[in-house]
C-alpha cells in the first residue's frame, strides 16, 4: 500500500470492554512500532516488532495490553477490560530498519466511557 493504515480510526468503548486495533504497515517494512499519544503530549512507546518477533514490550502499561504480528505484516494491539485512562490516540509506525525513517499511520482514537 501507499502508506501505513490503521483501523478503526475511531473507537468508543464502554469501560470493561475489550478492543482490538489494527495496523497495516508499508509492505516489506521489517520494523513496526506501537505508540500511545495522550492529548497534547508526545507519543509514548508501547512495543516493537522485528518481523513477527516482539523484541521490546517494555512500554505496555499493564498486562491488559497485548500486541501481536503473527506473519510479520499486519499487527493488532488488543486492550482487555478497558479503563478510562486508556483513552488516547494509538499510533502505529513502520520502517525498513530500527533506526530508519518511521512512517506513521493516522492513528486510532480510543475513547473509553
Amino acid at each position, binding site marked *: 500500500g501507499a*502508506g501505513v493504515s490503521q483501523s478503526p480510526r475511531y473507537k468508543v468503548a464502554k469501560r470493561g470492554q475489550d478492543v482490538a486495533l489494527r495496523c497495516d504497515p508499508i509492505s516489506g517494512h521489517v520494523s513496526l512500532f506501537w505508540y500511545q499519544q495522550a492529548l497534547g*503530549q*508526545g507519543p509514548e*512507546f508501547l512495543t516493537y516488532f522485528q518481523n513477527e518477533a516482539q523484541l*521490546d514490550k*517494555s512500554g505496555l502499561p499493564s498486562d491488559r495490553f497485548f500486541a501481536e504480528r503473527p506473519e510479520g505484516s499486519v499487527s493488532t494491539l488488543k486492550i482487555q477490560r478497558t479503563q478510562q485512562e486508556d483513552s488516547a490516540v494509538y*499510533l502505529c509506525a513502520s520502517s525498513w530498519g530500527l533506526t530508519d525513517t*518511521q512512517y*506513521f499511520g493516522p492513528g486510532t482514537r480510543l475513547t473509553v466511557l
Partner: protein
Amino acid sequence: AQTVTQSQPEMSVQEAETVTLSCTYDTSESNYYLFWYKQPPSRQMILVIRQEAYKQQNATENRFSVNFQKAAKSFSLKISDSQLGDTAMYFCAFMKGATSGTYKYIFGTGTRLKVLA
C-alpha cells in the same frame, strides 16, 4: 534513563521568517540517533530531519537544519523561510544505537508552531 525535553510549548513566526525550536536530551550513550518529526493538525506524523550522533556535520533538509551540540546534549531545529504549511506540532525524538539491545524511541512533549501570514 534517557529523557527528551522541549521547553517551548508554543511558538509563532511570521511567514518567510526564521524560527528555531529547542530540544535537549539526557543520555550516557555515545551512539544514538536524534529526529525531528512534524505532526500537522489532523494529519499524520512525518519525519523532518534526522541526525546520527557520530556525525559531526549538522543535518540539513532544504529549509530545515539542525544545530547538534553533542557535548551540550542539544539538538535544535531551524526552519528558514517559514511557510504556512509549516504550522504543526514538532516533536524531538531520541533513539539509542541499534546494538544497544533496546528499541525504544523517546519523544519530547512537542512544540506547537504557528506560522502567521
